[in-house]
């Protein structure tokens, strides 16, 4: 009984949070989030650091946030953005996230693959047939200098 109550309570709260998040998503120009404009990401002050870094990075002229933070496929791109977009909004609104922000395994994977979108040819030689070669181990700073 008690359990059920808390469950209901939880889902209600969840509902509210989600509500707010969707509000956030819209208010924080969630729409532009789905575009390629890096400024969209910077709508969140919390993303400002990366944005500022990116403008100084070796890649600012050649790659936007989404080039490195979304999977190659068209659908995959929007799926991951929807999920990132929502969760970022959720996290941002509830303020529940680890600081400094750290890329999560799933997104790190996406980013690792993203490098190959553009550098496949260059690294064919070193990639080898065996074992994944992590680019970020040596190039963590290419995106935004840290």
């Amino acid at each position: 009984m008690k359990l059920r109550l808390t469950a209901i309570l939880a889902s209600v709260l969840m509902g509210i949070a989600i509500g707010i998040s969707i509000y956030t998503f819209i208010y924080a120009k969630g729409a532009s989030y789905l575009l390629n404009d890096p400024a969209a990401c910077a709508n969140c002050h919390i993303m400002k650091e990366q944005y500022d870094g990116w403008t100084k990075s070796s890649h600012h002229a050649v790659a936007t946030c989404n080039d490195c933070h979304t999977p190659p496929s068209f659908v995959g791109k929007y799926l991951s953005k929807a999920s990132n977009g929502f969760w970022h909004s959720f996290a941002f609104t509830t303020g529940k996230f680890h600081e400094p922000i750290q890329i999560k395994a799933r997104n790190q994977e996406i980013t690792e693959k993203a490098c190959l979108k553009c550098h496949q040819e260059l690294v064919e030689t070193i990639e080898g047939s065996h074992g994944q070669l992590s680019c970020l181990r040596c190039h963590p700073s290419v995106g935004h200098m840290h």
Partner: protein
Amino acid sequence: NILEHKQEAKNPFYKVTELTDEIDDPSIWGKNFPLQYDDYLKTVDQVRTRFGGSEAIPHTPTQVDPRSVVAESKLEEDPRLKTIWAGYAFSKDFREDRGHAYMLEDQTYTERQTVVKQPGTCLNCHASTYTLYKKLGSGDLTRGFEQLNQMSFVEGRKLVKHPVSCIDCHTPETMQLRVTRPAFIEGMRALKFNQGIKDYDVNKMATRQEMRSFVCGQCHVEYYFQGKEKRLTYPWAKGLKVEDIMAYYDEANFKDWTHAESGAEVLKAQHPEFEMWNQGIHARSGVACADCHMPYKREGAMKISDHHVRSPLLNINRSCQTCHKWPETELKERVEIIQERTYKLRNIAMDALVDLINDIKVARTAGRTDEELSTARNFQRKAQFRLDFVEAENSTGFHAPQEATRILGESIDFSRQGQNALHKLPAK
């Protein structure tokens, strides 16, 4: 709530009251800067880490020492320290350091006060002395500083109210950092002169990033009281390395005390955090004290400096993870590996020094002359200062890992050589 977030982003702080250069009461500054003030007050917390932080030890208040809580005694933790400092006030009472909130009372009630009549100089690093300096020197900091140095601690103590306060690190109008301690200003001038830079003035010439360490360097340094004026002096004229400082003291032929058991004229090093940090890779990489001990934290849309100054191991994500993308547990382990290595060698160095002291004592009671003992005593002086330089440095080696173990290695060599020198004396 995001609306608020956007708000905050616009105006970082609200000016409630007009701050002047005369207000040393932090609670008034706190009206304009409540966030920093709240954190500043948190320095009363006591939490232990493997080698740092501090433990809250209950203490039954007495007439002479009304404190109800103190930090753990290092002398009880390691009685060898009593032998090493025999005859010096530190062998009476020496405790783990704790938060800034306690600096004034801990200094006032340490038993070290009961064994020696301490000068007003002590207060330079344990109280908010800026306004007092100005008052005593009628506007001239340095003259005020000289006045306080020459008072007795008891006299001086009556004239101060607060531990280090906002005004000691900040200019009220701009909140810019500033150095308010003449001893640091003079120490840096001597250091820079040695490097070929004339008339160095930290408040004019230091970069902002440097100031984020210099404000700490006003107190977290090795020091001595020069002459009968008891002028607080930082021995940096030859450099900041342990060898440079030792050379400075030798030239001035200065001694802190004469060792009770061995009769050697020895030195005591105190909290050379600034000097040690300078030898480390972080200083070289431009990482300031404040980066690790007062990391930025987010309050809504604002980034503020965490004024709860403490062990970074109690705040690893903010103190370290902005630069090191390793998990907290991993970063903690990295520190402890460095500290364990330092601690292990420190213990070997301590045994070596205690052995030397005992051997000299024996030779002395056996009637060896001062002349016969001089070589061994000189080795003790060398070994003692080096050991102390690491022992008294509060990061247990972290601020400069390899330098700390290198210094201990030399300390060991000197202690053991001292023993050999005795053995080599012609039998009689």
